[in-house]
């Protein structure tokens, strides 16, 4: 074993290389690793947050769905009510209309009947005069009889 100055040279090299590594090599990789660690941590955190957000959104959507269902039920109820109301109103209107129409028709009928009565009266009086003329055959004063016949006609 020949120990020479080499041993001192190697010791010096050892400390120089150590210093170089500590100052110019180690921090580079340390930083890269730390950055990557941070990125991964951020990614995981974001994923966890997204999951939570999703859960929240789902809860919210079910809530809103419930509210919407209740509202829809209310609206349907209201619509049903309003529908039956409209039907009722329509029925009432129709009834009134029918009454009105019936009343009009009855008035018309009455009027017709009266007109027919008038016409009949006039015709009956004419027939009666004609009959009387036939019986009396000219001797009878037409003007004198006119009043009597009109009286008769109005009594009919």
């Amino acid at each position, binding site marked *: *074993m020949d120990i*020479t100055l080499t041993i001192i040279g*190697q*010791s010096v090299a050892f*400390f120089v*290389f150590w210093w170089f590594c500590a100052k110019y*090599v180690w921090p580079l990789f*340390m930083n890269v*690793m730390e950055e990557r660690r941070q*990125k991964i941590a951020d990614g995981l955190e974001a994923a966890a947050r997204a999951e939570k957000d999703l859960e929240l959104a789902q809860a919210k959507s079910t809530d809103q769905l419930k509210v919407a269902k209740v509202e829809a039920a209310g609206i349907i109820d209201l619509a049903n009510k309003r529908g039956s109301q409209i039907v009722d109103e329509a029925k009432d209107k129709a009834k009134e209309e029918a009454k009105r129409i019936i009343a009009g028709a009855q008035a018309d009928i009455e009027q017709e009947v009266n007109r027919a009565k008038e016409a009949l009266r006039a015709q009956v009086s004419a027939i009666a005069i004609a009959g009387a003329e036939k019986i009396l055959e000219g001797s009878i004063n037409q003007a004198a009889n006119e009043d009597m016949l009109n009286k008769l006609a109005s009594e009919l």
Partner: protein
Amino acid sequence: MAELADVAHAAAEHGAEGQTVQEYITHHLSYLTYGKFPDGHWGLAHTPEEAVSMGFMSIHVDTMGWSLFIGAAFLFFFRYIGLRATSDVPSGIQNFVESIFEFVESQVNSGFNYKNPHVGPLCLTVFVWIILMNTMDLVPVDWLPEIAMAVGGLWGLEHMSFKVVPTTDPNITMGMSISVFFLILYYSVKNKGLGGFLSELAFHPFGKWMLPFNLIIEIPTLFAKPVSLGLRLFGNMYAGELLFLLISGLLGAYQLPAHFVWAVFHLLVVPLQAFVFMMLTIVYLNAAHEPAHGDH
């Protein structure tokens, strides 16, 4: 056996250009050494004997150079990737570098219980650097030395040694383990106080009335840490390299399957030893950060 010896002899004669196997291996285990000759001038050693004569005042140009080159290449490569890294989905080479980074970081996080931002970079440096230095063991043993000899021949160094695997040089492994040892001392004193650190040596594990025994136990334990840390790595890699050299020097034409089998096995040793060095560094530094024992 006689056949094998013949093969070995033939290989030694032909494969290594007239060298004996012993010369071949010795040549591969010597260093390209620059240092101070006994007469006082500085220069490259031309023979292993010259290198030995220089003693401590010399430097292993080959292992030191590879160590520096590999460490610098690794750090600049990591910085290059790090500057282009994005925090989006990583792809290809960034993914690869990040997986190494994450592996080291998770080891530090699980093994080191205190807050010290410098331990992570230390472990990353040690782990990748040692893995790459060990990996040089898997380059066929003659390639780089042959190239080196060809290049060295231009300056009259045609027999120069050129050791390629830095972790087969005890100077390299001990250089690192002693650095770790200084860090253990530094952080121990910083976190426990000098008194706390010394009292751990003196009053532990048997209490203050057994102080000499405590010192006898604790001081070798303390010094065993850097020695075992450095020698474990050195021993494993040296043994691995030596086996490659033996295969290369002895088996001649039959060496390829043997190289393959040993390389596959070595593929386990290369990262394992780097991992062990890093883990022990973490364990030692963790112990250095533990608060002093209050009950003594």
